[in-house]
C-alpha cells in the first residue's frame, strides 16, 4: 500500500532584510529579493503531456533564490507554488502493503488552452445526453473534454466534497474545473491517484452536463492502517533510497512472509542508520497526541502530520526540508522520513553584467569569510543563515547583485548545493557633483554676488587585489570661483583583514589625510553677549588607525594623528586670540588664545585610542542595551610647544526597557528609560580648540552649542523617557552639564571671558516624527523655553 502526495503550494512570504542606508554609492537603486522558484521539469509546460511518473525522490527540485541587488532597502522572499512534493510509502509490517515507493509529480495548472483550434471554443462537447453517468472507459479517446466540476466522493463516509469546499485530497488532483482534458489525461490521472498510496480504492466517473461539459466524480476509499501511539521522525538526508525488491506475484505464502520480513529488517536497519533530526520533542509530542486522538492511521492523518512537520521546518527557516516518506505503517510507531536539506557543496560564482559566469576579482576566501559557517558543507540549510550571508556580503559593498541559491544536488539524494552568485560592482568610480548656493541678502532677496557654484569631486577604487582594500578621495568646495577659500579634501586608504583572510581576528587599517573647517564652539557668547566674532578652526592632518572589530558594533580603534590646526577669524585671516565686542563698540582683541603656541597655528601629533562597547539592539524599533565609549588622546611632546597632554572622555549610556514586549513586526516597542553620563577631562596642555564645550543638541539640550562654557573637565548627566504613542515616540528629558569648576583652568578662561555660566540644566519634552525630533526645551539658567527641531537621535 503506498501513496504519493503533493505538497501544498506555498504562499509568497515577504521577509525584510535591513540594509544600511545608501552611503554615497553611485548608481544602483536597491532592491533585495529572494524567491523560491519551482524549477519545473519540461513536462510542466503542456497539459497534453502530463509528467511521466518521475523516479526522482524529490518530486520537484525547488530553487530558493535569495538575491540582493546592491545596497538594498527591502527584501522579499517569494516561495513559488508547486514547490514541495511529498511521497509516502507504507512500510508494511504485518500483512500490509509492500514498502514500495511511488512518486508523482504535479505541475500546478495543467489545463492550458490549445491554440490550434478556433479561438473561443477550444474543447469538444461530449455529445451525449445530459445528466448521465459515463464510465471513463466509455469516453471517446479523440475528444477534448471540458471538465466543469471535480467532486470527491468518500465511499466510507458517503459524502461528497467539491473543490470549493476543500478537502486535503484535492491537492492530489491536478484536474482543474474549467480545464480541458483528453481521455488519456483522465486515465492517467486516475492511475496516478490509484498509485499514490492515499487510497485503498479509487475510481473516476464522468457525468455529462447539459452544456456539453463533464463533471468528474472521484470516488474513493481512504487508505487506513492500524492505529499507532508513537511517532518518530528520522533524517534520511544523503542516504541511499532503498529500492524495494520486486515482489514476485507468484510467491508462495512462505516466500511472501520471508519477503516481508526481509523488508522489515531492512527498514529497521535504515532507521538505525539515519541521523537524528532537528524536529524538537514538543512537536513530536503534539503529533503523538494527534495519532492517539485519531485511532486508526488514515491517509488524511498522515497528510496532516506531514503538514505539521513541514510547517515546523519551514517556520524555522529550513526551507529545503521536506517529508519524503512515511514508513513502518501498520505498527505501533509511525516513522516519518525527512530530508532536511543538508548542504553538500558550497559553490561561489561570479557573474558578469549579462549574468554569465565569469572569473571574479574578489578573492573567494573573502566571500567565504563573510558567509556564516552554517552555510558550509555538512550543515543544514537555513533561510536565516542565508539572509545573514546576504546581509554580510551586502555590507561589503562590493557586489551589485547577490544571490544565495540552494539547488538540489542531483548526485546526493536530499542534498543541497548552495550557490552563491555574485555580480561585482565596477571597482573604480568617479563622481562629480555641482551645486549652486545662494544666500539671502539684506532684504531677504539673494544678491547676484552670493550665487556661488560649489562642487564635489570624488573617486573610489574598491576591492584592490580582490581583498576589499580601497582608496577613496573627495575634494569639495563651496565656491569653485575661489576654491582656495574652503577647499576641503579627504583621501583614505582602507586595508581590511590586516591579520590575513583566514585569521578570525578582524582588524582594519586605515590611513587618511583630511582637512576640515569647523566653527569653534569655544568662542561663543553667553546669554547676555551677542555677536561674538566667530573663530574657525581649520585642521589639516594625517591619521593612521587600526580598528579591531569585536562584534558588529563593538570595536577598539587606535592610531596616531598628526595635524596642523589653524584658527581663523571671519575674514579667513589667522587670528591668535578670541575677541569680544566692547560696550564702546570696539573689539577687545585680547581674549583667550586660540592656539597653544599663541601664533594661530599649532602642529601636533598624538596617539588616539577609542574603545566602544555597544550591545544595543532594536526591539520593535526601540533601542535597548548599553553603550560605553572611552576615548583618549595622548600627547607625545611632538608639535608646537612640545605639547604633552592626556585628554580623555568616557560616556556611558543605558537604554532600559521598562516592559518586556513580544518581538515581531508591527508590535509596539517598549517604553525605554535612557540614562546617560559623560565625563571628560584633560591633564596637561590644552589648547582652546580641544577644550570640552557645554551646551548644544548633543550635550545639554535647550542651549546653543557651547553656550554654557568651555572647560577642562566636564560632566554631563541626562535622563530621557521614551514612550511609544501611536506608532511614533514621545519623550521627556532632563539634562545637566557642569564644568566642575574647571573653566578657569583653560587658558584665558573663555567661559568667563564670554560671560558664560559654566553649568546649566534643561528639561523638556518632544515628539519624534520620522527622523526628525520636535522638542520643547526649557533652559534652566534663564528659565525660558524654546522649540527645537533636530535630526537624528540625541543618544
Amino acid at each position, binding site marked *: 500500500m503506498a501513496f504519493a502526495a503533493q505538497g501544498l503550494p506555498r504562499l509568497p512570504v515577504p521577509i525584510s532584510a535591513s540594509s544600511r542606508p545608501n552611503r554615497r554609492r553611485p548608481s544602483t537603486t536597491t532592491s533585495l529579493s529572494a524567491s523560491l522558484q519551482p524549477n519545473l521539469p519540461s513536462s510542466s509546460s503542456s497539459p497534453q503531456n502530463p509528467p511521466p511518473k518521475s523516479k526522482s525522490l524529490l518530486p520537484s527540485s525547488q530553487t530558493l533564490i535569495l538575491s540582493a541587488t546592491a545596497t538594498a532597502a527591502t527584501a522579499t522572499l517569494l516561495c513559488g507554488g508547486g514547490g514541495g512534493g511529498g511521497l509516502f510509502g507504507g512500510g508494511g509490517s504485518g500483512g500490509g502493503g509492500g514498502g514500495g515507493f511511488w512518486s508523482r509529480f504535479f505541475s500546478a495548472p495543467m489545463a492550458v488552452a490549445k491554440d490550434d483550434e478556433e479561438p473561443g471554443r477550444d474543447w469538444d462537447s461530449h455529445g451525449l445526453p445530459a445528466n448521465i453517468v459515463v464510465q471513463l472507459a466509455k469516453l471517446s479517446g479523440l475528444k477534448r473534454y471540458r471538465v466543469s466540476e471535480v467532486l470527491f466522493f468518500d465511499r466510507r463516509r458517503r459524502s461528497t466534497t467539491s473543490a470549493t469546499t476543500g478537502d486535503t485530497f484535492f491537492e492530489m488532483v491536478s484536474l482543474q474545473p474549467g480545464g480541458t482534458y483528453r481521455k488519456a489525461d483522465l486515465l492517467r490521472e486516475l492511475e496516478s491517484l490509484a498509485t499514490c498510496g492515499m487510497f485503498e480504492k479509487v475510481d473516476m466517473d464522468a457525468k455529462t452536463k447539459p452544456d456539453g461539459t463533464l463533471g468528474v466524480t472521484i470516488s474513493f476509499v481512504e487508505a487506513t492502517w492500524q492505529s499507532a501511539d508513537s511517532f518518530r521522525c528520522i533524517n534520511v538526508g544523503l542516504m541511499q533510497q532503498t529500492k524495494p525488491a520486486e515482489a514476485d506475484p507468484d510467491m508462495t505464502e512462505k516466500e511472501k512472509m520471508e519477503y516481508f520480513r526481509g523488508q522489515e529488517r531492512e527498514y529497521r536497519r535504515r532507521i538505525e542508520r539515519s541521523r537524528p533530526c532537528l524536529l524538537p520533542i514538543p512537536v513530536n509530542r503534539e503529533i503523538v497526541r494527534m495519532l492517539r486522538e485519531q485511532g486508526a492511521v488514515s491517509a488524511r492523518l498522515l497528510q496532516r502530520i506531514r503538514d505539521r512537520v513541514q510547517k515546523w521546518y519551514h517556520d524555522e527557516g529550513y526551507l529545503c526540508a521536506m517529508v519524503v516518506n512515511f514508513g513502518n505503517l501498520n505498527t505501533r510507531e509511525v516513522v516519518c522520513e525527512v530530508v532536511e536539506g543538508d548542504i553538500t557543496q558550497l559553490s561561489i560564482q561570479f557573474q558578469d553584467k549579462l549574468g554569465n559566469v565569469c572569473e571574479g576579482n574578489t578573492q573567494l576566501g573573502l566571500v567565504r569569510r563573510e558567509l556564516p559557517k552554517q552555510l558550509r558543507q555538512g*550543515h543544514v540549510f537555513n533561510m536565516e543563515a542565508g539572509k545573514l550571508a546576504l546581509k554580510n556580503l551586502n555590507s561589503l559593498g562590493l557586489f551589485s547583485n547577490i544571490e544565495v541559491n540552494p539547488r538540489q544536488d542531483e548526485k546526493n539524494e536530499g542534498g543541497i548545493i548552495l550557490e552563491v552568485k555574485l555580480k561585482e560592482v565596477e571597482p573604480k568610480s568617479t563622481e562629480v557633483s555641482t551645486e549652486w548656493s545662494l544666500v539671502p541678502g539684506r532684504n531677504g532677496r539673494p544678491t547676484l554676488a552670493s550665487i556661488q557654484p560649489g562642487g564635489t569631486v570624488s573617486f573610489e577604487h574598491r576591492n584592490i587585489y580582490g581583498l576589499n582594500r580601497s582608496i577613496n578621495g573627495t575634494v569639495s568646495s563651496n565656491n569653485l570661483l575661489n576654491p582656495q577659500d574652503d577647499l576641503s579634501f579627504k583621501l583614505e586608504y582602507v586595508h581590511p583583514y590586516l591579520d590575513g583572510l583566514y585569521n578570525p581576528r578582524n582588524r582594519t587599517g586605515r590611513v587618511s589625510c583630511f582637512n576640515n573647517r569647523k566653527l569653534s564652539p569655544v568662542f561663543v557668547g553667553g546669554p547676555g553677549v551677542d555677536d561674538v566674532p566667530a573663530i574657525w578652526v581649520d585642521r589639516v592632518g594625517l591619521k593612521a588607525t587600526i580598528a579591531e572589530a569585536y562584534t558588529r558594533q563593538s570595536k577598539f580603534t587606535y592610531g596616531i594623528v598628526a595635524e596642523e590646526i589653524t584658527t581663523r577669524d571671519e575674514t579667513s585671516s589667522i587670528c591668535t586670540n578670541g575677541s569680544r565686542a566692547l560696550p564702546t563698540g570696539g573689539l*577687545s582683541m585680547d581674549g583667550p588664545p586660540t592656539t597653544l603656541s599663541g601664533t594661530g597655528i599649532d602642529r601636533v601629533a598624538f596617539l588616539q585610542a577609542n574603545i566602544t562597547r555597544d550591545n544595543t539592539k532594536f526591539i520593535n524599533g526601540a533601542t535597548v542595551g548599553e553603550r560605553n565609549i572611552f576615548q*583618549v588622546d595622548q600627547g607625545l611632546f611632538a608639535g608646537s610647544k612640545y605639547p604633552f597632554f592626556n585628554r580623555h572622555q568616557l560616556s556611558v549610556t543605558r537604554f532600559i526597557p521598562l516592559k518586556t514586549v513580544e518581538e515581531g513586526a508591527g508590535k509596539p516597542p517598549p517604553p525605554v528609560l535612557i540614562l546617560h553620563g559623560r565625563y571628560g577631562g584633560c591633564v596637561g596642555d590644552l589648547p582652546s580648540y580641544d577644550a570640552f564645550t557645554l551646551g548644544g543638541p548633543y550635550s545639554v539640550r535647550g542651549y546653543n552649542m557651547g553656550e554654557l562654557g568651555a572647560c*577642562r573637565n566636564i560632566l554631563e548627566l541626562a535622563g530621557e523617557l521614551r514612550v511609544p504613542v501611536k506608532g511614533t515616540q514621545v519623550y521627556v528629558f532632563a539634562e545637566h552639564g557642569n564644568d566642575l569648576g574647571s573653566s578657569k583652568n583653560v587658558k584665558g578662561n573663555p567661559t568667563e571671558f564670554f560671560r558664560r555660566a559654566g553649568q546649566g540644566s534643561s528639561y523638556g519634552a518632544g515628539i519624534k516624527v520620522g527622523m526628525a525630533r520636535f522638542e520643547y526645551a526649557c533652559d534652566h539658567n534663564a528659565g525660558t523655553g524654546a522649540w527645537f527641531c533636530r535630526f537624528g537621535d540625541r543618544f
Partner: protein
Amino acid sequence: MASQVTREWSGIQQFPVATQTKLLELLAKLRNDNVNSLTILVMGKGGVGKSSTVNSILGERVAPVSAFQSEGLRPVLYSRSRAGFTLNIIDTPGIIEGGYVNEHAVEVIKRFLLNKTIDILLYVERLDSYRVDNLDRQVIKAITDSFGKGIWRRGVVVLTHAQLSPPDGLNYEDFFTKRSEAVLRVVRLGARIKRQEFQENAIPVALVENSGRCNTNDSGEKVLPNGIAWIPSLVNTITEVVSNGSKPIFVDKKLIDGPNPNAWGKIWIPLIVAFQYFVVIKGIRKQIKEDIARDDRPLWELRDLGLADRNF
C-alpha cells in the same frame, strides 16, 4: 614706562611745617628699618579720587585731575626721593567699564607692574557713598586674582571725600565705622579671605580729603571733621603696614600669567595612561567579551551547534 626719572620730592615743602616734620619723622623711621624705597599702588573704581589722592600725598599736581572726566587709561608711576628715600606711587586707571571689570585694563596694569615690587596697595573708595554692590566685589576679586590674596596684607583701604556731614541721626564716627565696615566686608568677600584670618590681620582704613576746601588746623594741616590731620595719619598707617611683617608683592611673569593650568599634573600623565589602559580599556574589553558570550544566538544557530538536544 619705568624710565621715569626719579625727581627730588620738592612737593613735600608745600606741606605745612608740622606735616613735614611728621613725614620726615616717619621716613626716618622707615629708613631705620632698612626700607629705602616704598612703592604704593593705588587702585579702585573710576572717579573715586585715586589721582587726587596721589596728588595730595606728593604735594604736587602730578596727575591731571578733572571733575567730570576720568582721563588716564594707562598707569603712571611717580617717583620722588628725599633724603635718600624713594617714594614711588603708581596711579592706575579705573578698572570698571560698562558694569564689568575691564580685563583689558587689569591686564595693562599687570604688565605695567611687571618686575616691580608693591609695598603698599591703596584701595580707594569713597566715604560718602552709602552702598556697596556686586561691582565692588568684582573689583576686589580682580585685584586678588591678579596679585594674590597676599596683597591685602599690604593693603590699606582709603576712603576719600572724608569731609562730609553724615546723614541725619548719625554722628561722623558712627558713619565712618559703618562705612568702613561695609567696605571691609566687601574686601573680605571679594578676596575670599577667611573671617578669622581677616580679623587677625585687619586691613587698616584711612580717610582722605583731597578737596582744596579741606579744613585746616592751627598749623595749617588739612584736618578731617574729627580733627585728625589726614596726611601724616595716612603715611603713618602706611608705615605701620610696611612694618607689619608681611612680604611685599613682587610682580613677576608668573604672577601676571597666573598659575599655568597647562602645566598642572603633567607628571602624572604616565600614571593616568597606565590606569586608562589597564583599568578602563581592559575593563571595557572584558565587558565586550562578556557580551559576546552572553549574546543570545538564534535558535537555528544553536541547533547547528548541536546545543538544542531536540528541546526546541
